[in-house]
């Protein structure tokens, strides 16, 4: 199946996302913040990036911006994990080049449904 990069500073969220994706047969690369995520994206060409927004060192918005500057990630779907209480974050993310978003809280099934849409 697909190789997916999951970026989140929260270990429990990362675990859950990664577990759900692996369970569905995907390869998962994990990263703990934007800086780590950017490195991981450069080291592995993944076909989907799922990133949290609020993270230390480099936040999700900056990561998306950086990724879009890489030739390999010009058109790669990038989904951000946002909370419904931060609508302006969605806009910022879109402006940075995000494909779409998944609203927290979500359960593994919702996550899989959304990424299946994007992966086709």
């Amino acid at each position, binding site marked *: 199946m697909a190789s997916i990069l999951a970026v989140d500073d929260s270990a429990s969220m990362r675990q859950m996302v990664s577990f759900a994706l692996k369970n569905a047969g995907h390869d998962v690369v994990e990263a703990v913040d934007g800086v780590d995520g950017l490195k991981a994206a450069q080291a592995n060409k993944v076909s989907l990036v799922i990133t949290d927004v609020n993270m230390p060192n480099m936040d999700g918005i900056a990561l998306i911006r950086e990724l879009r500057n890489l030739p390999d990630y010009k058109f790669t779907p990038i989904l951000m994990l946002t909370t419904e209480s931060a609508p302006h974050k969605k806009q910022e993310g879109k402006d940075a080049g995000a494909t*779409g978003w998944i609203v927290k809280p979500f359960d593994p*099934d919702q996550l899989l449904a959304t990424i299946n849409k994007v992966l086709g």
Partner: protein
Amino acid sequence: MAIDITQFHETFFEESFEGLDIMESGLLNLDIGAADNDTVNSIFRAAHSIKGGSATFGFTEVAEFTHGMETLLDEMRDGSRDVTQTSVDTLLQSVDCLREMLGASRDKTPIDAERAAVLKGELEAILASGTSGSEPESTQQASSEPVSEVSASHEGWMIKFTPHHDMLKTGNDPVRMFRELGELGELSVVVDISQLPILNDLDPEESYLSWELTLIANVEIEKVKEIFEWVEDECDFNISEIKGDAPEESAEENVAASAAEKKPASSAPVKPVAAKPAAGAKSTANTDSASIRVSIDKVDALINMVGELVITQSMIGQLDCDFDDFDNSRMEKLRDGLTLLERNTRELQESVMRIRMLPISFAFNRFPRMVHDLCQKLDKKIELKTTGEQTELDKTVMEKIGDPLVHLVRNSIDHGIEMPEERRAANKPETGTIELNAFHKGGNIIIEIKDDGAGFNKDRIKAKAIERELIGKDEHLSDDKIYDLIFQPGFSTAEQLSDISGRGVGMDVVKRNIRELGGSIDVTSEEGNGTTFTIRLPLTLAILDGQLVCVGDEIYITPLVSIVESLQIKKEFVNNIAGQTELYKVREDYIPIVRMHDMFGIDVERKNLEGGLLVVVEGDGKKAGLLVDELLGQQQVVIKSLETNYKRVDGVSGATILGDGTVALILDVDGLIDLSRNPPTPGNKPDNLAREVA
């Protein structure tokens, strides 16, 4: 195959408690009025993560409670709200409350809903007041949005979809959306290629096409709009309803316009957190067996060592074990192999030990808050300085040293540091300083608690000790001895007892707890200039560097750290006091001689001192000489608890198993020194044990 998300709970709790620590220390470091943006940001992030996680993992009350904190912090972060003392205090209390809520959720016990509701009210009051005046945001899901009616004559939707040139650059593929639409009903697609340039002018990264989509399906308009939700700003898009045969323009709706309406719906009143009965009658879950977080380096080091070990093993294995033909060259190889094996084993052991080690900041973290709270309560001004937070300590030692440290720091705040006016009068800066320092020294970890307060008043301690009949009226005591008095049970010098450091119970308990960890505590003080407590702790509780000594047929292990020197007894340096206590003169010191065979009831051939071996040990600031028959080798021994397997015995701290399989007792040097001064009680005399074990 639904995924059981409870498996992530432990991680969630662990990181949430870490997040709370970050929030707490961050809040304590905030300068009122001129808050550092990075700090506010990190506090916000922690709250945000806890909220996100608790909502995801089903801890709704926690999520609701954290929401208020997050909103307040968000406003502080974007500068729309000033950082005030009130808001910091409320946030600190909220951190405490949240910690309890999380603890209760973890242990599956009821949450203190009342406290949460009160704090939540306070947070909301802060939010409602002052600069920003923003309403608490809706926590409602999009599902509460008005759902448009599907009219009776409805047949489907006609969608005109024109992506902007750069839509592809957000990774959105029109094909995905069409596929999704196709899942809703019968879809026909007509593409408009009129904008497509000639090949030379075509930029493959841009989008030039537009589509007319006819969806024959009985679905609500929201369903259709949802599919285009991610691209609503990157396309021109309008939907019209198809009724009967002909598409009708009346129901046309512009998505751009509707997007503006989609602002948060007016907020529903926030319900007070309701207490949920505990799920099941399960008693508090035991968290002692909780996990430990280990950095990857440590695990890698371990794997590395195992690799080395395997190599060594195969190296030894390659020596053909045909002993008839075992020549010198192979002997040498075998010896090399064994040397390597020994090194591997030691390094492996160290690596494994390091897994249990945590930075002492785990124990230090609680103090900034404590100092902050107590200062407010007592109207004192104190600055807390810590160094060596990265010094690592065994997890068990860490857990057990927490309470003694709290007691000592409280004491320094309460009794050590003076009130600001007293300090001014004494020509000292108004703000007192308490230092917590941790560092390695020899095989020990040293923790210092140092204050620049009033110091001990020796006369007062002495007077108190005489009053309590701890010492005789005319007894002359050295400074050290006087300070030692404060560790006596039931001793307190504070003229007014306070609820901060209690009634002076404790110092003896502090000392006992530290002794139980194999450590010691010393105090030095200078009147007017402050007091320093020095705690000495072993690096680990599980392994000890020991000197094997022989008494009769028995082997005992003396901790290497407590041995000062070993010497052969010369008759002329032995002195007798009152016919029973034997003292030995080591340079300028007179130290008591402990006859090990007497202490442990062992028959030995040599009983006279002349020519015997004396191992000089030091513990608790006192020295003693242990009379033994022979010094054997030094080795690391694994400590087995005597208490859990047998019972506590004075003078013995544990047991171990030697290379040949025999059991040897590990000496408790402090205990032995005490025993040599105060004869043992009959029931607990070590020689009973020596017989039973033998």
